[in-house]
């Protein structure tokens, strides 16, 4: 029951008035950017990174985690009322939720999404509290070779899961590695890939990459095709109070969705998409009236929304315990840790217990705030959907300028930002996932360090990765993960397609 004592201590940290305010600010901002098309939690946290110079780490991470959770809630509102899922994880919500909204049951869809997110978020956060110490125990036995192999495994699975093709995911990841390599090598002081530019010696700032891809690239992509029509916003109708029938149809999907989402999110592979699809598929199988699916079945909103939020909680487990981010948002949070000189990993729980447990406790508090923000105050967020696209995207670029130009007041940074934005536009147009770029950029240097340490210990002998049992196991799983998706697709894809195509 160590975890409970730790949690109690965490509540003592999180419940101070200042930290409650940070949490409230985070979840409010998170909901807003989740609702707004064109903004995501990764972009927002990247723009807010300078705050790490002003406040203590606990406050900053309470803020960031609030944004992270809040964006999940806000995103489901947009999926239901606008039918444009912002993330792959909310595709399924859009399918059934938007149908419900069209049938005049938008209120119930939003309610089951919010309450399901709440239930899953609370269970998932408690899951972090109980699972993370176990992972830490295990991770303490890892040597550099094992870490490197684990990262390889994570790279492979992340690139396979975050996009529609493992090949294009790996391209994005490798491009991220390159961006991470630019600058002075920390071990030897040797400049690499600076092309003679002194600005490049410090390396490329992750803010420039994240903002370039997620704000500039996105804006260019949307601009290039804005004439292709606009989504209609379904007006919010129907009571937010779910009927007894809707409650009884919702609670089991919430729990099942959580059971899919948390463990899969907690794997070093991450990915919220697979659990949401699994949940949708399961609910359809188990439903008393499966013919309702595709026409607005509440189970199809309740289950996947819970799975989505539970996996968001799960992602924090490898991030905090192993220093392995499996989403772009987690990667940017990791770089915030680095700017404090804190290294997430097994030692984090010993060296910064008040930070870790305060963060976990604040997530539990933040979830309660989010439930209030997203049910009684939903009308406020719906109004934000009406911000016209020209003003929204132009405004996003103004904030992008502040985040980038503020780094060193150099127009070179802005040019680099726009160059990366152009790369992001090409990537979007040609269906490359952009999140692995950020993950590769943050994790690449760590992987390189472990690789070189392992090879130094083994005196340059590459077989060290195959002779250590842990490392060999990770590499074997990575190899299987590269091949297995092809089988997976052969078996599962027709079914998933089938659901999707019946939109």
């Amino acid at each position, binding site marked *: 029951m160590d975890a409970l004592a730790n949690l109690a201590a965490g509540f003592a940290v999180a419940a101070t008035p200042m930290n409650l305010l940070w949490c409230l600010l985070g979840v409010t901002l998170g909901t807003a950017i989740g609702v707004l*098309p064109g903004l*995501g*939690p*990764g972009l927002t946290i990247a723009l807010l990174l*300078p705050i790490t110079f*002003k406040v203590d780490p606990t406050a900053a991470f309470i803020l960031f985690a609030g944004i992270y959770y809040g964006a999940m809630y806000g995103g489901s509102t947009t999926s239901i009322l*606008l*039918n444009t899922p*912002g*993330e792959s994880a909310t*595709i399924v919500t859009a399918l059934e939720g938007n149908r419900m909204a069209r049938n005049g049951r938008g209120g119930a869809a939003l309610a089951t999404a919010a309450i399901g997110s709440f239930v899953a978020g609370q269970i998932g956060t408690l899951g972090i509290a109980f699972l993370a110490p176990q992972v830490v125990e295990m991770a303490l036995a890892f040597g550099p070779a094992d870490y490197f192999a684990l990262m390889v495994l994570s790279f492979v699975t992340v690139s396979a899961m*975050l996009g*529609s093709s493992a090949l*294009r995911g790996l*391209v994005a990841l*490798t*491009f991220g*590695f390159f961006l991470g*390599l630019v600058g002075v090598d920390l071990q*030897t002081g*040797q400049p*690499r*890939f600076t092309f003679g530019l002194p600005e490049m010696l410090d390396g490329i700032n992750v803010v420039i990459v994240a903002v370039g891809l*997620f704000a*500039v690239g996105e*804006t*260019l*992509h*949307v*601009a*290039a*095709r*804005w004439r*292709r029509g606009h989504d209609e916003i379904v007006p919010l109708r129907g009571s937010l109070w779910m009927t007894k029938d809707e409650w009884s149809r919702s609670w089991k999907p919430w729990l099942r969705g959580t059971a899919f989402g948390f463990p899969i999110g907690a794997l070093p592979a991450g990915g*919220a*998409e697979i659990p949401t*699809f699994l949940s949708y598929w399961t609910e359809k199988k188990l439903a008393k009236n499966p013919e309702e699916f595709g026409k607005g079945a509440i189970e199809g909103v309740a289950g996947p929304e819970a799975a989505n939020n539970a996996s968001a909680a799960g992602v924090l487990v490898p991030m905090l315990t192993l220093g392995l981010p499996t989403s772009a*948002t987690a990667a940017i949070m990791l770089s915030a840790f680095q700017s404090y000189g804190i290294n997430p990993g097994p030692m984090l729980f010993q060296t910064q217990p008040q930070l870790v447990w305060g963060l976990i406790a604040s997530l539990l508090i933040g979830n309660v705030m989010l439930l209030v923000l997203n049910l009684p105050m939903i009308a406020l967020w719906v109004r934000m959907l009406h911000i016209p*696209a*020209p*003003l929204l*995207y132009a405004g996003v*670029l*103004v904030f992008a*300028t502040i985040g980038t*130009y*503020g780094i060193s007041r150099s*127009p070179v940074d*802005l040019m680099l930002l726009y160059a990366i934005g152009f790369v992001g536009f090409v990537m*979007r147009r*040609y269906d*490359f996932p952009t*999140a692995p770029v950020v993950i590769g950029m943050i994790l690449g240097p760590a992987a*390189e360090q472990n690789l*070189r340490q392992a090879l*130094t210990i083994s005196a340059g002998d590459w077989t060290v990765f195959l002779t250590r049992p842990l490392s060999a196991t990770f590499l074997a799983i990575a190899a299987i993960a590269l091949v297995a998706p092809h089988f997976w697709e052969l078996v599962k894809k*027709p079914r998933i397609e*089938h659901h999707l*195509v*019946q939109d």
Partner: protein
Amino acid sequence: MARPLRRDGRATFFRSPAFSRRRSVDPERRAVAADPIDEPAMTEPVPQFPPSRLRFAGGEFAVAVGLIAFAVVVMWQTFAIPVSPLYSKVGPTIAPHLNWIFLLVLGLGLLGQALRGGWQSDEEKESPVDFIALGFVAAGLAANVLLIEPAGFTIASVAMFVLVARGFGSQRWLRNAGIAFVLALVAHLGFAGLLGIDIGGGIVENAVGSALGIVKG
């Protein structure tokens, strides 16, 4: 069925694989997946390969060649890194070498796919790039870079804002300029001020700053 979900309009934090998966479904599979009752059009015989799949995929080819060229540049720059004999076995070039090898292999993989008809979804292929819109947005970005040092953040932002908004079809220049002016000032004084970001001064900033100074007294 299949009112194609559009994926613009909503910025994606993660890319949406299932969208593209869904749109890039093989024609055969689409025929299987579609419910013929819902969608009469789909009951017509579906050609084995839509014409676009037979054609040489120019865009994808360019992307693949671009990646290979990039890999070559990375290779060249890797060999340009001097290595002290001290680190000859595990030195600063080990990761860069892996990097260009991966880039090259992946680029060749993409090239293979491009030659076999490409991977871009039909929906994306059929939607032409709106170069006028892109041109206005690019002009806005260029204006920002050019104006931010001489004229200051606020003026540069206003110029960028109205041009980007025009790219998205909004021609209410004056209203947009007004919104941009207020937004830039609020962002400068609020957001940047609170975060402690220094984005420099300019004509407008200095004027507002001294006005505030007078008010504060």
